[in-house]
């Protein structure tokens, strides 16, 4: 009977009717569209900003993503990034040498650590003491004052120096041995391996002598790339841990995924708040469509009288909501790019993450919620219109 092109022609006519009905109250329709534009723009802009903020933060952690920490398997205790070792909890030197000679290892640092009472002038205090070689310390940290020299001397963390008024040249006594402060490190951000802010770093040899250590507390290994992390872990399991479990491998990738999770959560939360504006837009669509339904009661009556199904009336009104939704969502999504740009510039001072797939994703998401809102709020008026009794509707004045 009816070919598909005829059907399409029919749809086009319904579309035209819906479009003309919206044009009849141009200002009202425009205001409803503006509501949707603002809502979609708010949601998508916030989403884009959240993603860019995350990307910026993660980029600060880029250098640790290929970092792997290796602890002795017995009782590695990681508390606030500080490893406490007591007695036998160390990686013996032979094992350590084997580990750092495994493939995938680009660089490494042996670290000893212990908690010790330290004397300075008349006072006694407790501090973490790290044993590391000079090269590794230079790789990880930089000095505020003095220089990084560890033979017979030490470097101290920023907070510790600040707290005890330590200066370059000050003398500390650790377990009866005297160390001269050669340098004060710059304040370091939160780290997951060595936390120097409240610590004293001495050379590995001095550490051995002072604490009588037989091995290392942990090893920091940098693999060549992120993909090598798993390969390296497997290699450790196959070789070092083959007979008995000697070491645990702790990858900092996990931390990245936690950061990811947290930011996604914050981003969702902010988007939900922005979603309130979309809700308001939905209410305004509801209002516009309800008014339109009431004003056009008579017309609906005519349509029903000359043979329109109730479902056709429903479709016509939903189509009107859909048109409002599509126009508002598309414009809103496009403007969200400008919105994202502005917020990025204001807060991140950079827009380098703006033009990415995630941005497109959030634009599409904004559009999706814009359309969903208009359809949901258009549904009640459309349903109401479709339930009118033809005769009563015809007589409506």
């Amino acid at each position: 009977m009816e070919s598909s092109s005829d059907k399409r022609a029919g749809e086009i006519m319904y579309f035209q009717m819906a479009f003309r009905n919206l044009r009849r109250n141009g200002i009202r329709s425009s205001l409803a569209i503006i509501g949707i534009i603002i809502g979609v723009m708010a949601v998508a802009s916030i989403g884009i900003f959240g993603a860019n903020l995350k990307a910026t933060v993660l980029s600060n952690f880029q250098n640790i993503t290929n970092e792997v920490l290796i602890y002795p398997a017995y009782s590695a205790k990681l508390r606030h990034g500080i490893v406490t070792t007591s007695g036998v909890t160390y990686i013996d030197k032979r094992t350590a040498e084997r580990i750092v000679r495994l493939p995938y290892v680009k660089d490494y640092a042996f670290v000893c650590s212990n908690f010790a009472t330290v004397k300075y002038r008349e006072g006694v205090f407790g501090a973490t003491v790290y044993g590391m070689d000079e090269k590794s310390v230079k790789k990880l940290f930089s000095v505020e004052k003095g220089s990084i020299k560890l033979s017979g001397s030490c470097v101290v963390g920023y907070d510790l120096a600040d707290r005890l008024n330590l200066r370059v040249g000050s003398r500390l006594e650790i377990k009866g041995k005297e160390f001269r402060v050669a340098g004060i490190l710059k304040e370091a951000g939160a780290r997951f391996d060595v936390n120097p802010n409240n610590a004293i770093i001495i050379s590995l040899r001095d550490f051995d002598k002072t604490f009588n250590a037989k091995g290392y507390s942990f090893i920091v290994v940098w693999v060549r790339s992120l993909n090598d992390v798993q390969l390296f872990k497997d290699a450790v399991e196959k070789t070092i841990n083959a007979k008995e479990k000697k070491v645990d491998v702790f990858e900092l990738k996990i931390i990245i995924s936690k950061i990811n999770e947290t930011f996604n959560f914050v981003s969702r939360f902010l988007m939900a708040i922005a979603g309130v504006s979309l809700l308001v837009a939905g209410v305004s669509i509801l209002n516009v469509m309800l008014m339109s339904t009431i004003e056009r009661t008579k017309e609906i009556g005519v349509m029903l009288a000359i043979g329109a199904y109730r479902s056709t009336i429903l479709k016509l009104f939903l189509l009107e909501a859909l048109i409002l939704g599509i126009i508002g969502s598309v414009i809103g999504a496009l403007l969200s790019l400008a919105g994202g740009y502005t917020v990025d510039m204001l807060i991140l001072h950079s827009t380098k993450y703006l033009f990415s797939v995630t941005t497109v994703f959030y634009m599409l998401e904004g559009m999706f919620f814009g359309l969903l809102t208009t359809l949901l709020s258009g549904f009640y008026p459309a349903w109401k219109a479709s339930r009118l009794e033809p005769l009563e509707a015809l007589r409506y004045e």
Partner: protein
Amino acid sequence: MYAIELKDVKKVYRVGNEDIYAVNGVSLKVKVGEFLCVMGASGSGKTTLLSLMGCLDKPTSGKVIVEGVDTSELGDRELTKIRRDKIGFVFQQYHLIPTLTAFENVELPMLLKGISKKERERRAMELLKIMGIDKAANRKPSELSGGMQQRVAIARALANNPKILLCDEPTGNLDTKSGEVVMNLIKQQNEKGVTVVLVTHDPDISKYADRVVRIRDGKLIGQESG
């Protein structure tokens, strides 16, 4: 078979605590091809009667049979189909869709039926020509005179080739001359075989009818042949 048959039809409206009998026990048979005029003053129930015949409204009791089909048994969609395919309505107020052109208004019932675009356009143009308003095809109702709007409305009523045309005071808003044009067009359709039921309070109109029935207080009070 009759075009329309009413069997003891009643329509009661409840206003406050009072039951108002808009139609109170009407039995009526409209023959196929007949031109029936229902005359009555305003408030006599003539429009309600026409609405019942046209399946726009359901009777409180009694039966409305359209072309042999008992409509009291039918659901909403079936009633809609009857209105769409078997009946054409002409209202006093024309009731054209203001956003559509004259041409599109005539197309609309065919669109609702799912007629192909080509056929819709052919038929709409044909009807507008018959009604003598093909030159106004692309004008909106607001740009047409009352007489022209009513002619568009008749064209729309005829779009799906209904066998029955129900007219509610079709000349009520028109001057005498336009009214005559409209009545002649309706009569012309009747002569082509379309059953016409027309309600009016204007005695002059009854001259077009084959038969006139009078209604008062919801009851038929007499029948005479025109």
